């Protein structure tokens, strides 16, 4: 790895100051993507600002039907949290299926969505659940947050502090793993909640996670796996690579949507 300077931020203000002071400073949480990228020389931040020790950055609280998940809460903590399991078991299952056990002990929800990897699981979950991303300066709807490949609405000096999710009536996430990396070749999160039926797809879009209007319309009319049969899923704008063509991914979107509805 190229040299870097490590800071353990004691507060949000401290983290913001260090972010602004560094030439190319980056926030660090679990590091399961960032440190791996640094080892490959794909990232060389001048400074790493560790946000995990900031008060209130990790842990889950429930207020009625609303979950508030601290940005530095690990995947293992989300997967094992009784409130998440009670109010949104699909989200607990999603967290419990990310990476491997060692990754889940370290990786965090805030880190995952700030990175917005086009194959990451959390973006699909938060988009389908209509989550709110809370930062040190504002609240951002998931619909506005995920902007494209590794791109989010976050501005310089902006730090995710928590994620707010309302319990859906029913929801499920199913992913088809790319057999070597075990990342989602395609993952579909279906949710029927206060904001209506939402279907979010990860792993497939050229611009990262996206919602599928046709599937949402069909499932709004009839929450049954057969409702997806008549929906056409276009392969335009879908990723095509050695692991699967765009047409293959388009078919998977439909198949996984049906499986997710059955599992919900």
């Amino acid at each position: 790895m190229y040299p870097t300077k490590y800071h353990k931020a004691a507060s949000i203000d401290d983290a913001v100051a260090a972010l602004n002071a560094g030439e190319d400073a980056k926030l660090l949480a679990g590091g399961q993507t960032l440190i791996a990228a640094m080892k490959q020389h794909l990232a060389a931040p001048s400074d790493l600002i560790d946000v995990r020790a900031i008060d209130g950055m990790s842990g889950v609280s429930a207020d009625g039907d609303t979950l508030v998940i601290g940005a530095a809460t690990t995947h293992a903590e989300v997967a094992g949290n009784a409130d998440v399991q009670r109010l949104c078991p699909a989200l607990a299952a999603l967290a419990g299926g990310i990476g491997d056990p060692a990754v889940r002990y370290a990786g965090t929800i805030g880190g995952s969505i700030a990175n917005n990897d086009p194959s990451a699981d959390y973006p699909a979950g938060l988009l389908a659940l209509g989550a709110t991303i809370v930062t040190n300066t504002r609240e951002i709807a998931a619909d506005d947050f995920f902007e494209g490949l590794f791109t989010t609405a976050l501005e310089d000096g902006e730090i995710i502090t928590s994620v707010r999710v309302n319990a859906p009536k029913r929801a499920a996430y199913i992913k088809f793993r790319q057999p070597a990396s075990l990342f989602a070749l395609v993952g579909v999160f279906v949710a029927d909640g206060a904001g209506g039926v939402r279907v979010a797809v990860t792993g497939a879009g050229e611009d990262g996670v996206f919602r599928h209007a046709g599937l949402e319309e069909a499932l709004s009319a009839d929450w049954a796996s057969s409702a997806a049969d008549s929906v056409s899923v276009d392969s335009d704008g879908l990723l095509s690579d050695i692991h699967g063509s765009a047409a293959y991914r388009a078919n998977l979107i439909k198949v996984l949507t049906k499986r997710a509805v059955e599992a919900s």
Partner: protein
Amino acid sequence: MTNIKMTVNGKSVSGEVPDETLLSEFLRENLRLTGTHVGCDTSQCGACVVHVNGKALKACTTLAASLEGAEVTTIEGLANGGELHPMQQAFNDNHGLQCGFCTPGMIMTSVDMVNRYKAEGKELTEEAIRDELEGNICRCTGYHNIVKSVEDAAAKM
């Protein structure tokens, strides 16, 4: 450079290291605890898994500087004097290794796995073991004897 202090295998250790030093580097190069292996450069193989504050982490994807005051256990810290840990003994008894390169990570992951399942009162089935070993790659055994080893040790831990 950061001056770090942590507890490794019950002993207090310290060192002045560059901030980008990985825990795997600190363990192997500063402390000469070479039982923690580094099998890949991509955070995928799991040979470097150690326990940090009771949780199995990839030492190659953890900055040493972030672990001030942490309690670290490596494969060298598992045995009780001359008596092997039940997981180590089970890998021995069930021929759970051939070349042995992945074994330290396999064992550290497996100890964490068994402890976690016991704490949560969940049944550790063969399927669960295979799923839990997703982050540990072995190129020799085909995993069958590793799974048998974990099943054997789980009954004794």
